[in-house]
């Protein structure tokens, strides 16, 4: 019981962080049709900016300032980079963001060095929030959940309850019509791109000190966010939410369960030879590849994803 509850909490925390990361990606993709390969790099930038700001001003200002700064970077990159690439079609855009991800990683290495920086959880958030049976739940994980739920609600309210949200939604499916009505669609695109990468940066701010802030952190999450978006359905925010939680929880439980491939094969009535390397593999070892397995399965059986609105 303790194990199930603790793993569930761990899984949800991880899932929420994944959602924060991938929501921006989904937003940008559904709006602009741009698959932003550099998305995880903005997550890394968020962590590094937060580290730098927290050295000068402390953690709380960093929580606000870092995503704003990264958002501003995003706006400038869209305005002076991506918009030009846009003229030459999707392939040019894709290559542009692909190159951007390498550029950002190298810049981070040059500015902050190759090793991890000492970005720590603030003292006020160090400690135990509550104790479940005999396991402690740290305050910081609670804080991570709070921030991501807050972000989810704010995003939902923005998209469905405000005028800006309505225009954004309209530009999503009928950009020509929106433009004809006198709205500045390129500017909306620019703001969405800035907002999307700011969300990734926010995830970086709270993920960077929970885990570790180093130049490899973008590559570490770079692929998993695409899994979330593909599984959730391209362009679906709700889908990304469900997929994030699903992947977070499945992966956490897979690590925790004591099941080997032999056991799983036995379920299907297949007898594996005990001496084989394959038979000795445990679910725990397979946990890191499960999301990718999931993605391949989704692409084969339901290409539009769990909640995707369209095929591509």
């Amino acid at each position, binding site marked *: 019981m303790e194990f199930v509850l*603790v793993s569930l909490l761990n899984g949800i925390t991880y899932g929420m962080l994944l959602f924060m990361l991938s929501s921006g990606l989904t937003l940008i993709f559904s709006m602009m049709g741009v698959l932003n390969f550099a998305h995880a790099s903005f997550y890394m930038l968020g962590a590094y900016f937060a580290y730098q700001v927290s050295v000068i001003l402390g953690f709380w200002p960093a929580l606000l300032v870092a995503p704003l700064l990264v958002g501003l970077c995003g706006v400038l990159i869209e305005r002076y980079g991506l918009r030009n690439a846009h003229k030459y079609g999707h392939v040019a855009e894709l290559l542009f963001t692909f190159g951007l991800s390498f550029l950002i990683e190298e810049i981070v290495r040059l500015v902050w060095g190759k090793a991890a920086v000492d970005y720590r959880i603030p003292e006020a958030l160090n400690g135990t929030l509550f104790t479940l049976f005999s396991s402690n739940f740290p305050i910081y994980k609670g804080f991570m959940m709070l921030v991501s739920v807050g972000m989810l609600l704010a995003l939902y309210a923005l998209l469905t309850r405000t005028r800006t949200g309505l225009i954004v939604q309209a530009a999503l499916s009928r950009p020509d019509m929106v433009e004809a009505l006198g709205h500045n669609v390129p500017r909306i695109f620019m703001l969405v791109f800035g907002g999307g990468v700011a969300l990734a940066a926010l995830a970086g701010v709270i993920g960077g000190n929970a*885990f570790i802030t180093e130049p490899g952190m973008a590559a570490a999450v770079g692929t998993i966010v695409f899994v979330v978006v593909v599984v959730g359905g391209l362009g679906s925010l709700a889908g990304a939410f469900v997929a994030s939680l699903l992947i977070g929880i499945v992966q*956490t439980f897979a*690590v925790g369960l004591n099941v080997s491939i032999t056991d799983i094969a036995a379920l299907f009535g297949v007898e594996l030879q005990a001496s084989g390397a394959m038979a000795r593999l445990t679910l725990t*070892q397979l946990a890191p590849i499960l999301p990718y397995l999931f993605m391949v399965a989704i692409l084969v059986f339901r290409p539009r994803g769990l909640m995707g609105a369209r095929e591509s």
Partner: protein
Amino acid sequence: MSFRISNMQLLAALALLFTGSALAQVKIAYIDPLSGPFANVGDAGLKQFKEIVEQVNQTGGAAGQKLEMVPFDNKGSPQESLINFKSVTDQGIRYITQGNGSGVAHALVDAVSKWNARNPDKTVLFLNYAAVDPTLTNEKCSFWHFRFDANSDMKMEAITNFMENDKKVKKVFILGQDYAHGHAVAKAAKAMLAAKRPDVKIVGEDLHPIGRVKDFSPYVAKIKAADADTIITGNWGNDLSLLVKAAKDAGLKAKFYTYYAGGLGTPTAMGAAGEGQVLQLTEWHMNVQPNKTEAFALAFNKKYPDLDFYYLRVNTMVTMLAKAMNDAKSTDPTRVARQLEDMHYQADTGDVWMRKSDHQLIQPLYISIFAKQDGKAVKHDIEHTGYGFKTLASISARDTQLPTSCVMERL
């Protein structure tokens, strides 16, 4: 005429610039991660090498020459290390050292052996300061490889001997990184515990991808569910500090038996929660008695406030190498290797011996526990935490010896 003289001066200045001094240099290539998840480990190691090399150079150098460390970033990967090794041989460097990752060490041993077979006049010597997979001095041993750290089996032998008398150990969980080293630790732990403490139950055994897990809380939840009272882990670098951090956050009350808890952020991650819970097996720590390295270590810590001196074996290795060069009156790797094998040497913690049969250094080891600084048994703290390591058991060099299956091809 004056033009010609100034040209000569220029040449002389250039020559000085390139050699740095009138003495020739013996270059030692340092092939370890300087970027990626283990960059901090490689960086700390390099600084320690530079410190002792500087001391050796100030006290006469080796065979009349100065030593110099040349860093190569292998990003923690065997493939990159082989590319590094190519540059090493291209630059005519004859000594290499590496420590982080037995996978890398295996690749380098292979490459060095092949290179030396093809280039007998340009042989390269591999000095291993931390890769502890036992096979490197057993089945896969090589004349060109010398190991200055106790191998994983020797360490596990010492840990399990200690556990033999600790009746509180009842349920053991083994967690390790999924590569040669983690496998070796798990295998040795199981075999030795079965022989020495058949009553102890192994309640779980897991391998995780090396350097890729950022959140260990699912593993900690599993350890808790298995109700383990003791964890054995060979993890190092961030794989250890993040594990300990997750254990602390979840309030896991179990003893950690580790190889590498004494450095690189792990003490900081443990803080007060590690007191009396985390043990390490090392060849040295800041509170060993008598501590002949104290002054050196304090000077190092002062120079690098973010680091704590950690690798006594690096000092032992560099000074032994210098002695071997002095004894051989040469810096030729083949002749130096012949001096190194079977060398008895007075290191800071006592007599050490480079066993000739497998090139494994036999040195005293210590089991120590994380405890509050008290000015006596715990004279120095570590990473400014207010906690340091306290010796629980000293193992004499002789008692650390294990038989070897090495059949060495000699020159």
